[in-house]
């Protein structure tokens, strides 16, 4: 049994929130550079150049990449041999978000109807898993409102063909592109239940950009959908071009004989994601 003080979780979450806000991961930068090399639309090229320049300024000046510093989505995996001491883990995570967002935009309201800003960007959206081992892995994905609003899910027929699934995802991703700050990452969940399919789509985002699903058929489906989305010509910010998405990531799960849930979680080009292991 390894004892870890929850204060360590607070410090780590705060640090990850801050770093994520200004330091665009290298895999996203690589994908944007590759997109620039391929892009032929003058507006599309200009937009991608702006994004690369923006990332450079943000990192140098420690300024947020995007003004929407997001809902703090926190994935936390706790080893079953860890004993957490010193307080409540949920309070520790939110304390970390509150500290981390001191100089970032506070974008969370306390109640969907009353809509009063909580003024410290809490609470976080926490996904907690217990896994083997004696470590804690924490990942922070600050999720902007534009991409979330442009996301969708459907309970389609279990007799639907693969083409039907492809059409649903492609149509949605193309239509959502301008509002979801294309070119970004299209996270897709297929299967599971009404409650889990959205989480599958979100978890699909937290993978290195363009690292394929380990299942060959799903990996091929990812490539096929990406090709079709980019063939639409919607382009960066929806203003035309070859780059409407940088990547399509799919996660799947078993599902009921009567069901075929599909979810599309749109992620903008400002794909901010940081993780750490304690």
């Amino acid at each position, binding site marked *: 049994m390894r004892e870890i003080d929850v204060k360590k979780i607070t410090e780590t979450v705060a640090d990850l929130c801050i770093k994520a806000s200004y330091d665009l991961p290298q895999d996203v930068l690589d994908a944007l550079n590759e997109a620039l090399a391929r892009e032929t639309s003058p507006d599309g090229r200009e937009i991608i150049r702006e994004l690369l*320049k923006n990332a450079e*300024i943000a990192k140098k000046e420690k300024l947020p990449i995007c*003004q*929407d510093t997001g809902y703090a989505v926190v994935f936390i995996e706790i080893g079953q041999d860890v004993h957490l001491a010193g307080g409540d883990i949920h309070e520790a995570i939110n304390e970390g978000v509150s500290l981390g967002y001191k100089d970032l935009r*506070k974008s969370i309201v306390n109640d969907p109807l009353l809509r009063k800003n909580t003024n410290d960007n809490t609470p976080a959206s926490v996904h907690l898993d217990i896994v083997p081992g004696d470590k804690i892995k924490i990942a922070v994905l600050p999720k902007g409102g534009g991409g979330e609003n442009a996301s969708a899910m459907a309970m389609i027929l279990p007799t639907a063909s693969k083409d039907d699934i492809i059409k649903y995802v492609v149509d949605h991703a193309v239509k959502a592109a301008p509002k979801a700050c294309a070119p970004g990452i299209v996270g897709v969940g297929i299967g599971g239940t009404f409650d889990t399919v959205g989480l599958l789509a979100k978890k699909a985002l937290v993978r290195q950009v363009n690292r394929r699903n380990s299942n060959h058929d799903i990996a091929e489906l990812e490539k096929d959908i990406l090709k079709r989305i980019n063939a639409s010509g919607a382009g960066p910010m929806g203003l035309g071009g070859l780059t409407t998405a940088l990547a399509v990531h799919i996660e799947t799960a078993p599902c009921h004989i009567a069901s075929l849930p599909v979810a599309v979680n749109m992620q903008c080009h400002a794909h901010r994601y940081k993780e750490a292991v304690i």
Partner: protein
Amino acid sequence: MDPKKLNMPLEGKDIAGLKAGDRVLLSGIMYTARDAAHLRGIPFDPKGQVIFYAGPTPGKNGRLIGSIGPTTASRMDPFMNELLGKGLAASIGKGPRSTEVKKLHKKHKAVYFVATGGAAALLARTVKKAEVFEYGDLGPEAVLKLDVFDFPAIVAYDIHGGDAFEKINN
């Protein structure tokens, strides 16, 4: 083609010469307003003015704002009939708007600009001065008066019905 340089507030002749897809560099005064400020009521005479749909991050080292960029414009569609009717010259956001709002731009001879979403550290460099104009209690949704220089944008809707998003019919 080189971007067109325009000064805000905008005049009718400036707006008339713009076509969907044109690149522009905007200088002068614009006001930020997003969902909550629209709901409460735009606190200035919109005639000839430009609204930037944006909520910045807090500033550091004595600056009022940090990063700033456009949010999705279509969320403010329900307020456009009134604002364009009162003479609002332009708005700046991201993404397409409803067909009805697009037509209102033609009717009232106003334009809708889009700026690059998520390029907020870069766009912040164009802001020379920022002050809270009204609704400071709304925090990131307060109405700010910004003095900008060479703020880059693209004409999405012009006064002739032109639409830079026509590739993906919304």
